[in-house]
């Protein structure tokens, strides 16, 4: 995911300064890693250099020097391009979980592999329960719910895959050691 595109998207609603952008990012994408301030300013600098945003004013009421940014026409065009571009499907195939399960099944004995899988499943279901709690909290915003849904769907997919894999392996074992 590209931070610069997300910032462009947030600026599409109107001019904002760096601090607002960070807060707005963390609010809207609560399940993503929070943005560091340095990263926000570095990205804004790059966007300004490429002519995608420009400074729109200074605001210094009672605080440190704050610069507001506004999206340019070129910026809108770039954002539009990004939003219409189809993401390559199945990026999760390369995840650490997949690699670890496969290696574990190949390298460790069945007992160790199973222990690992049970622990992994427990971790997944715990996280699933936490995310569901976030979602059902009466104070949850639509943004929270959508973000939680996204994570839940992926965890659920992992769990299903774990289960199916184990069943396949059990069948395979039975085939090989009847």
């Amino acid at each position, binding site marked *: 995911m590209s931070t610069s595109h997300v910032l462009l998207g947030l600026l599409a609603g109107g001019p904002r300064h760096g601090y607002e952008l960070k807060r707005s990012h963390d609010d809207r994408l609560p399940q993503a890693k929070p943005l560091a301030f340095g990263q926000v300013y570095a990205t804004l600098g790059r966007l300004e250099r490429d002519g995608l945003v420009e400074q729109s004013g200074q605001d210094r009421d009672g605080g440190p020097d704050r610069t507001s940014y506004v999206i340019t026409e070129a910026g809108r065009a770039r954002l539009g391009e990004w939003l219409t571009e189809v993401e390559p499907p199945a990026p999760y195939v390369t995840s650490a979980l997949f690699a670890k399960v496969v290696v574990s099944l190949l390298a460790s004995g069945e007992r160790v592999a199973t222990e690992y899988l049970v622990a992994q499943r427990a971790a997944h*279901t715990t996280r699933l*329960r936490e995310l569901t709690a976030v979602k059902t909290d009466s104070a949850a915003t639509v943004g929270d719910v959508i973000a939680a849904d996204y994570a839940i769907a992926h*965890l*659920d997919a992992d769990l299903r895959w774990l289960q199916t894999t*184990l069943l396949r392996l059990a069948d395979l074992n039975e085939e090989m050691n009847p």
Partner: protein
Amino acid sequence: MNTLLQGTALHRAYGPTPALRGVDIEVTEGEIVAVTGPSGCGKSTLLHCLAGIMRVDSGSVRYRDQDIGLWSESARSKLRRTEFGVLFQFGQLVPELTAGENVALPLLLGGVKRREAQKTAEEWLDRFGVAELAGKLPGAMSGGQQQRCAVARAMVTEPRALFADEPTGALDVLTGEQVLGEIVRVAREKGMAVVLVTHEAQIAAYADREISLRDGALDPTGLGLRTRA
């Protein structure tokens, strides 16, 4: 917390086919427990036995320290309509009765006056956001609306335990999620225990804890691994 329900060494077979092979389970007051497992693992049978709908072949089901297996059918019937609520996937509303009458039915059976029962029923329909359906017949409602009425009926007596067997199985994801969210919200509000049978991890995640079954026995791994004899 106090133990509400306790099943010990539950066995149950359908003819020669075993459905439960020695399951132990405990449900405390106000707790939400998910029972998961693949099709045919015995999770519905476990729910039916715990709810006193079905008798076990051996083992005991204790509700507040009383062995309900020793009770007569009419005593268990009364238990089910006062202390328990049951909820199935679909088809539990009486098609000829209006939503309000369906929800009022358990109260009427308990001897509550028609008018009063109707009023309470409408309050419960309102709690699930379907107050405007009180005068409608189930056939004229959507699946989600019907299931909300069924939830209201299962909860109208403010039971101590709600038994839900794939309650959202016939609904689309979003509607199912809303209905389930409402069940959990009201159950927490009223301190009801819920036994939630499901085969989906996402649904089970609404519970406080999860127990998995496999081939009629507890599956501590939850991974559906075949138990090695």
